[in-house]
């Protein structure tokens, strides 16, 4: 395997709190040296002048759609989109067809990832068979096959008794239970945040209390069971506050927030663009502000994309009929760099929330850029301005609210296990 020298960048390493200029040497799939200046012969040199050098980004929440919905995305295209966006690892949700509720499906996903994905893939298994919310999955067998967490995601488990047993049983495998916390009876047919915007649009409204009620329930069940609860895509000020209180009480709870819930409000929905339809919906400016504060003060651990590919023809329908969700792997980094530009986070804090924190939530290696660490590395040009065209991206789908917009900041090189898999000039280089 080749040797790579990343020269002259600003090194951001959450594991050692290093934020200083320097060089990084990669040999045999590992970081072999990080020093102010490294001289080496017979190496491939990556010039990182003006760039950040960070551990590869780790996405806690991706939908790769394979098996079953390969017309939206597959493990190869999703993996290529990941590395083009600076992600070296993605955790993929279980709502495939068949559902990832059986070790054979987990095996299949990992097998396909080894063949086709330049990014590392960590399967999240279903918490209940067929996402039915009724019978829990074989967690021990699934973990042995490689599952790293359990979630029914959008099929929120409304039966509190079932949810309690899942949390209890998850302690056997010490894997987090990830919840899409929305009380489905309060959501009803709601498709936009309830408030002045839903009133103007005349679309069925989804109140923020649908999230807070469900987060409150799950936190209480986490307290009862001692399980690790991970709250996916927090979107409301109320949920941020409940999680803050729970952490202060010492509960084992972690949380993520998406780039869209950090930067867009429900006003983005005013033109009825179905690429602004998400679950949970885009919320008010006060909710966005609370999510930003929660991410800054550590209440929310991580940024996760909730990359949710849908075909163009599925989105070109009535707002109520269109499936919720947007793609995000190729835009997440520039979108959240706004938090650094507005001084909500330092560069090192942001990188920690995109690397070390999500990796540690799933109990995986990642988020380290010191000697001996796996060589999963991203080089980021934080200033580079570019126009995002989803038709030129690597995802098979185009459903993005940032289509056609000028974004600032971009991954310029991505290395997975010591191999350069993406660079900005040549594109994705290897599966």
């Amino acid at each position: 395997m080749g040797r790579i020298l990343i020269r002259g960048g600003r090194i951001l390493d959450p594991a050692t709190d290093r934020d200083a200029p320097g060089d990084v040497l990669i040999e045999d799939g590992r970081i072999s040296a990080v020093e102010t200046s490294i001289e080496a012969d017979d190496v491939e040199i990556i010039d990182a002048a003006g760039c950040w050098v960070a551990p590869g980004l780790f996405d806690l929440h991706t939908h790769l759609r394979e098996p079953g919905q390969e017309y939206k995305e597959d493990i190869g295209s999703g993996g290529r989109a990941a590395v083009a966006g600076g992600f070296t690892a993605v955790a993929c949700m279980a709502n495939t067809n068949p559902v990832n509720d059986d070790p054979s499906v987990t095996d299949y996903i990992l097998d396909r990832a080894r063949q086709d994905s330049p990014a590392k893939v960590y399967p999240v298994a279903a918490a209940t068979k067929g996402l039915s919310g009724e019978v829990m999955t074989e967690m021990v067998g699934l973990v042995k096959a490689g599952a790293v967490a359990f979630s029914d995601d959008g099929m929120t488990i409304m039966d509190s008794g079932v949810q309690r047993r899942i949390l209890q049983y998850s302690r056997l495998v010490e894997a987090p239970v990830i919840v899409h916390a929305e009380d489905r009876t309060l959501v009803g047919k709601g498709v936009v945040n309830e408030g002045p915007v839903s009133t103007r649009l005349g679309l069925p409204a989804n109140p923020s209390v649908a999230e807070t009620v469900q987060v409150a329930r799950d936190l209480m069940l986490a307290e009862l069971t001692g399980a690790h609860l991970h709250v996916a895509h927090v979107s409301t000020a109320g949920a941020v506050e409940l999680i803050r209180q729970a952490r202060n009480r010492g509960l084992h709870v972690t949380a993520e927030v998406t780039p869209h819930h950090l930067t867009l409000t429900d006003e983005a929905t005013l033109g009825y663009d179905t690429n602004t339809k998400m679950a949970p919906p885009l919320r008010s400016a006060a909710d966005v502000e609370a999510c930003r504060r929660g991410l800054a003060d550590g209440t929310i651990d991580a940024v996760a994309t909730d990359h949710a590919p849908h075909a163009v023809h599925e989105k070109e329908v009535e707002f109520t009929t269109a499936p919720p969700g947007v793609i995000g792997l190729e835009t997440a980094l520039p979108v959240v760099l706004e938090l650094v530009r507005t001084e909500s986070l330092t560069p090192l804090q942001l990188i920690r929330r995109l690397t070390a924190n999500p990796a540690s939530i799933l109990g995986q290696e990642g988020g380290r850029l010191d000697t001996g660490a796996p060589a999963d590395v991203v080089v980021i040009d934080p200033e580079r301005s570019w126009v995002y065209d989803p038709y030129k991206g690597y995802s098979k789908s185009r459903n993005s609210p940032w289509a056609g917009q000028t974004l600032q900041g971009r991954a310029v090189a991505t290395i997975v296990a010591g191999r350069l898999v993406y660079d900005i000039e040549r594109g994705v280089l290897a599966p």
Partner: protein
Amino acid sequence: MMGRGLLGIEDLERADIETILETAERMQEVGRRDVKKVPTLRGRTIVNLFFEPSTRTRTSFEIAGKRLSADVVNFTPASSSLTKAETILDTAKNLDAMAPDAVVVRHAVAGVPKRIADELGAPVINAGDGAHEHPTQALLDLLTVREEKGRIDGLTVTIIGDVAHSRVARSDIYAFRKMGAEVRLAAPPTMLPADVESLGVKGFTSLREAIDGADVVMALRIQFERLAGALFPSVREYSATFGVDRAKLRYAKDDAIVMHPGPVNRGVELSHDLADHRPSVILDQVRNGVAIRMAVLYLLAGRTRVEREEE
């Protein structure tokens, strides 16, 4: 604004509304002739694209178009993308290829006319989308009130019923507010939309307080088949609490008029007696609907493609 179509009253300026009302007053005259036809839109094609059945509104647009000598084509696709392979944008693009001069769109989901308008060269007229807007209804309401009262400025208009699910209510709120009236709402709290004050109106749960001193009392149609038991306990309790009859109307001004977008659930929103007799003006609303739609079609379809593109 009127160049690109009529998607909602929210987008209009007061001057636009004045123009439409004045044009409609001239169109009223055509409706009183023996031969109710003028050649104004001869050679122009108007498509009525109704995804949701609505005999009354569609007929009103059809009569309006025909009185202006336009070729009116009714197109009733399957009601939802769920029931067919074609997407809404497919439908719009296909239609656009046939070069209509105006397209009138009705759909059960808010926002569909806007998405179609984004794809079409021809102006789109919203004939009602979900709980969003029904602009020609609000315009015909304005015309009817102006006929009765001689003005709209300074009047008090009370709208009663399921505002949360009503496109008529939203359009009327914008329309009457823009023309200088005060708008009050009266409904059970389950039927008022979130943050309704953001529309510049006051919500009441007491019908009596809301009607007190009103010049115009407008009752909305209740979809009681769908809503009874969900938003209110029973039709009986609704009509006892929010149904308008002559006794309740006494709190309004002596010369107050009663309006309803139709069709009336008799004995629910309005007493039988009020539904048929003054001070209700329901059939005047229907009559003025044709004049308003003639005015809107004249202002939008009357211009050539070249004129539209030059704007």
